């Protein structure tokens, strides 16, 4: 009989809160984040969108990120460490110091050769690349200017040094590498770069590695950091009109699956890391099991790098693969954590897909309606939400659903739900589709 795989720990960083307990409490209450853009971005461009979802803070010192870490790790790498640390703590895995000088740790009761890391990211350390290139370009330019050119200097907002750790801050495998180093894990350390499906894909690949016996435990999830000093990454999404625009109250701008939706809400960043563990390994050490990770399906549209394929053919096949992998039928699925971005095309395609496969039976919500779109982290945060919903038999409402589309059974009010099986699905720029099936643990 094939091994069963469970989720035993969760760590999150989201615009709503840093830390899983605070995030989940606020999500269940239906709280959301949507704020005006940083004022200084207006110096560079007049954007079409006018709102985003910032993180509560970029200072993670309270979560164990030292001053030295902060100076040489990209924010996405810091987020990965914060999430991994919390995931291990909630999984009840103790650590001891391996090398005090390097700040590295060893996991108690875990064979390091049988433990790996699977992290997803969409843009890697793009914000560090932008900052260091700004220094690189601006420094010689500024040296030739008179002191009166202070306004121009301010316009560049360039950091005062070219960071000697620029390469390891920029590389997309950085988050996975720093987690593997910090916790001394010698199993496979894989980075999944599949835009908005990165996080789901990483967890899916972790499931397969643990189920196959390659490892007993994996730290799996996704991280992203999307803000730069200039709104340059924001502009990349804005220029193709994918982002939500507030007409009046910003709190009403982010409305996935509503007829009046205008695009997705750009998030500053976020992350989620799950401890994905072989069931017997978890039971033997008395771990708290949050949910069973039961199935994974992945397909590729081969259609367009920018647009999803509107008939959803490969998305439907993805769901079929994921359900078959989990040994369940469409009628068993009680809850779908939708990709639910809030773009016109995604939500129309996805609502039709869900109606076609599941009818109006399962509860549906969009976590992006609360925290915006964290790109490479989103699939992991949403898998975390699915796991917590199964554990607590309750999920969060989907915000701003006044005129819902597609005739689905949306979660609109906070409250308990009877959830035995959940599907979390992600679709990505590029054409990647990834879905996870989770079950209530019994």
């Amino acid at each position, binding site marked *: 009989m094939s091994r069963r795989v469970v989720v035993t720990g969760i760590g999150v960083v989201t615009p709503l809160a840093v830390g899983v307990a605070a995030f989940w409490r606020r999500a269940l209450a239906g709280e959301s984040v949507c704020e005006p853009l940083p004022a200084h971005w207006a110096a560079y461009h007049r954007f079409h969108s006018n709102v985003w979802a910032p993180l509560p803070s970029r200072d993670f010192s309270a979560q164990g990120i*030292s*001053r*030295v870490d902060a*100076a*040489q790790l990209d924010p996405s790498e810091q987020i990965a460490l914060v999430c991994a640390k919390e995931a291990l703590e909630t999984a009840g895995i103790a650590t001891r110091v391996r090398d*005090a*000088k390097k*700040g590295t740790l060893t996991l108690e009761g875990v064979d390091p050769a049988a433990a790996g890391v699977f992290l997803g990211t969409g843009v890697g350390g793009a914000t560090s690349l932008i900052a260091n290139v700004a220094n690189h370009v601006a420094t010689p330019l500024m040296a030739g200017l008179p002191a009166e050119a202070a306004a121009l200097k301010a316009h560049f907002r360039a950091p*005062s*040094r070219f*960071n*000697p*750790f620029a390469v390891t801050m920029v590389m997309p495998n950085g988050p996975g590498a720093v987690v593997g180093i910090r916790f001394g894990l010698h199993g496979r350390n894989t980075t999944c770069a599949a835009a908005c499906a990165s996080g789901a894909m990483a967890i899916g690949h972790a499931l397969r590695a643990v189920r196959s016996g390659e490892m007993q435990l994996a730290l799996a999830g996704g991280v992203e950091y999307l803000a730069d000093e200039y709104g340059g990454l924001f502009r990349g999404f804005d220029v193709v009109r994918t982002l939500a625009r507030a007409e009046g109250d910003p709190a009403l701008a982010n409305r996935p699956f509503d007829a009046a939706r205008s695009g997705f809400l750009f998030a500053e960043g976020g992350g989620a890391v799950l401890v994905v563990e072989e069931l017997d390994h978890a039971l033997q050490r008395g771990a708290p099991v949050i949910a069973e990770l039961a199935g994974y399906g992945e397909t590729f549209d081969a259609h367009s790098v920018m647009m999803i394929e509107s008939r959803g053919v490969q998305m439907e096949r993805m769901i079929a693969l994921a359900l078959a992998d989990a040994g369940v039928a469409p009628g068993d699925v009680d809850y779908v954590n939708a990709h639910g971005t809030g773009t016109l095309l995604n939500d129309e395609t996805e609502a039709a897909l869900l109606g076609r496969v599941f009818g109006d039976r399962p509860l549906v919500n969009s976590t992006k309606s609360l925290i915006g779109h964290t790109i490479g982290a989103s699939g992991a945060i949403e898998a975390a939400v699915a796991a917590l919903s199964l554990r607590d038999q309750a999920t969060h409402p989907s915000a701003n659903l006044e005129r819902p589309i597609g005739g689905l059974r949306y979660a609109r009010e906070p409250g308990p739900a009877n959830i035995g099986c959940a599907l979390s699905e992600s679709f990505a720029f590029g054409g990647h589709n990834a879905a996870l099936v989770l079950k209530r643990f019994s």
Partner: protein
Amino acid sequence: MPDQQEIFDRVSKVIVETLKVDREKITPASRFTEDLGSDSLDRLTLLMQLEDEFGRKISDEDAQGLTSVQAVLDYIGGQGA
């Protein structure tokens, strides 16, 4: 201008934080590589942290000569913190 003791205390704090050595091990005569066990990456980290602590840029040329605590004290004291 801060006195020598204050500069030494602040430099020592940065060294403890960066190189994870005991405060008692640090004297003005301490050499970063031979006495405090730092490698080339530690040196880079240390220079960044000194820049942040004293709010100034250390050029690559100047950095070459900063091989001991005393050299750092002279460099910072000499430029007026």
